[in-house]
């Protein structure tokens, strides 16, 4: 390996992949890549397997610095449960914060924890429980009582407390025998977001305890670098692209996987010129959401259920029955790849359903309300209408690009309705054909601009500009 090169490794739940990049002046270029099956019982085995493929002649046990970065989503990734107060406020902000730290939210509960919600937390075994609620100086009762309930539960992971500062002592007393990390309130003032401290706290917990729990400390010790959760690598890259590339000011990334569909957006959440008044919080410019029920394989069945109406429109009743059959076969064999044109078509529609719902759940809505002053537009959530580029990544979408299969994005948007989804109106589609974004994402923290340029180098624009049949307000409202 030449001096000016870096190695990136991503440990996924099924594959451990690696790549060598040459580090040129202003960007990176791919030299070689490798992949082996992830060794779940001992993750470093596959890690070294990949390194050996990348550089067969090298003795990795030798001391010596290697420029190396790695990410991991193995063993369930970073699993977080969220306990907040008001669903649209502190709980919503906590979920956004957890997503933006690269976590998967496995359970979330507002107000007071009930016996059944505690059981749900114990059952889903999150790595971290994020407890919040109350503005600084605001409500203390809920977080204090919830802390007591958690103290009496069998939850064994780390608790991150990011609620009312005045309740900190009561929470700390209640959780005296637990692993507890206290950070700044994620909503210090009503409606005001303060998510950076929580993101940092989650990252610290990930490095201090979860990395060891997942058997990654051996790698950390040898190479002197810490892993990032894979989705955080992609999040960092999205941020870097938006901050460093003029042409990428309003874009989204869809990461369609076997178990989840992740949606990232870079765009202002609300435009004062849009004439809409905003209800609830103004969401962050860089936003990630994760849909645990939408995926191509492990989550194929739940995607089939969630995508019911979408799939019925696309395939008809008979088509849906055959798809159901296919989905059942996928459950038996999640590694299945389509073998004939019919199965390829099934996958295409399953993907369409996942993308459709992930997009609609990520996007906000606008509704027209009549007042004495005339009609008023009321927006909730994030306005994605200015997004003009969408990137598709993940194994399936990368393969679609390699095989020149088209992807269904934004077809079948809901007809005129009371609440209109604020989805992109017209965009170009780019594919991460070689599935490099997680690697490049690993480089985004240290080399933001170079990583951003590199990502664009490897994206391929496919298909024509896509036009979403723009949903209109039911009462003939006005858009920008």
């Amino acid at each position, binding site marked *: 390996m030449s001096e000016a090169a870096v190695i990136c490794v991503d440990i996924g739940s099924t594959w451990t992949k690696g790549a060598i990049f040459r580090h040129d002046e202003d960007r990176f270029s791919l030299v070689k890549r490798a992949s082996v099956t992830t060794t779940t019982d001992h993750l470093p085995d596959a890690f070294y397997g990949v390194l050996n493929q990348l550089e067969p002649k090298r003795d990795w046990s030798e001391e010596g610095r290697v420029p190396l970065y790695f990410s991991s989503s193995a063993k369930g990734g970073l699993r977080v449960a969220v306990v907040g*107060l*008001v669903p*649209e*406020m*502190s709980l919503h902000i906590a979920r956004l914060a957890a997503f933006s730290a690269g976590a998967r939210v496995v359970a979330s509960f507002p107000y007071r924890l009930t016996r059944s919600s505690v059981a749900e937390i114990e059952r889903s075994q999150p790595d971290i429980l994020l407890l919040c*609620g*109350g*503005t600084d*100086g*605001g*409500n*203390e*009762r809920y977080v204090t009582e919830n802390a007591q309930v958690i103290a009496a539960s069998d939850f064994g992971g780390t608790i991150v407390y990011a609620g009312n500062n005045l309740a900190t002592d009561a929470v700390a007393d209640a959780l005296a025998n637990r692993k507890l990390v206290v950070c700044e309130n994620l*909503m210090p*003032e*009503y*409606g005001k977001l303060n998510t950076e401290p929580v993101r940092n706290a989650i990252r610290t917990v990930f490095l201090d305890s979860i990395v060891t729990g997942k058997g990654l400390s051996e790698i950390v010790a040898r190479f002197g670098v810490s892993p990032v959760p894979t989705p955080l690598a992609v999040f960092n890259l999205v941020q870097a692209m938006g901050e460093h590339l003029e042409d990428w000011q309003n874009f989204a990334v869809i990461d369609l996987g076997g178990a989840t569909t992740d949606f990232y957006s870079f765009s202002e959440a609300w435009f004062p010129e849009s004439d809409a*008044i905003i*209800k*609830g919080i103004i969401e962050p410019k860089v936003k990630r959401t994760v849909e645990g029920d939408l995926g191509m394989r492990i989550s194929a069945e739940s995607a089939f259920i969630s995508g019911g109406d979408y799939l019925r429109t696309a395939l008809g009743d008979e088509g849906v029955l055959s798809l159901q059959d296919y989905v059942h076969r996928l459950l038996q064999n999640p590694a299945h790849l389509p073998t004939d044109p019919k199965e390829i078509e099934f996958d295409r529609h399953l993907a369409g359903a996942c993308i459709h719902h992930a997009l609609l759940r990520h996007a906000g809505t606008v509704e027209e*309300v009549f*007042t*004495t*002053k005339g009609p*008023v537009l009321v927006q909730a959530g994030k306005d994605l209408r200015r997004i003009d580029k969408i990137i598709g990544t993940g194994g399936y979408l990368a393969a679609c690009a390699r095989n020149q299969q088209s992807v269904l994005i934004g077809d079948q948007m809901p007809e005129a309705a009371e609440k209109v989804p604020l989805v992109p109106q017209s965009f170009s589609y780019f594919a991460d054909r070689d599935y490099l974004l997680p690697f490049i994402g690993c480089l985004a923290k240290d080399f933001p601009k170079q990583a951003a340029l590199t990502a664009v180098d490897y994206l391929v624009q496919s298909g024509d500009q896509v036009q979403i049949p723009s949903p209109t307000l039911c009462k003939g409202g006005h858009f920008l």
Partner: protein
Amino acid sequence: MRPKNIVLGVIGFDCHSVGNKILETFFTEAGFKVHNLGVMVSQEEFINAAIETNSKAIMVSSLYGHGEIDCAGLRERCIEKGLDDILLYVGGNLVVGKTPFAQVEEKFLKMGYDRVFGPDCSLEHVAELLHQDLLSREEKED
């Protein structure tokens, strides 16, 4: 003593913002921690804010004449959300036209508001009443 939290806002689709700013400044100076939601605030938003901020009083303004429709049901909604004992104050130009104030007051008291004020009320007096009302609620709790 810590300043007491109160929630303030103009209800419904009312966008008269001048009085709202005055009320925010006034009650802040009178020793309250004011969580001002601004104009065009829904009942839901008043309640969510009161829960997160642990406010024991909600100050509702209505200026544009639709107060009756906008304000109805807030008390019931508060009870439903567990804010059993919260103080509800309402003020402004609460109804259209020149209805005698006593009649207006009666209407809003019936809706469950604790105190009702017209546009020319003395804010010093309001602050005094608010301090007293909050105190007596606290005593009741202990």
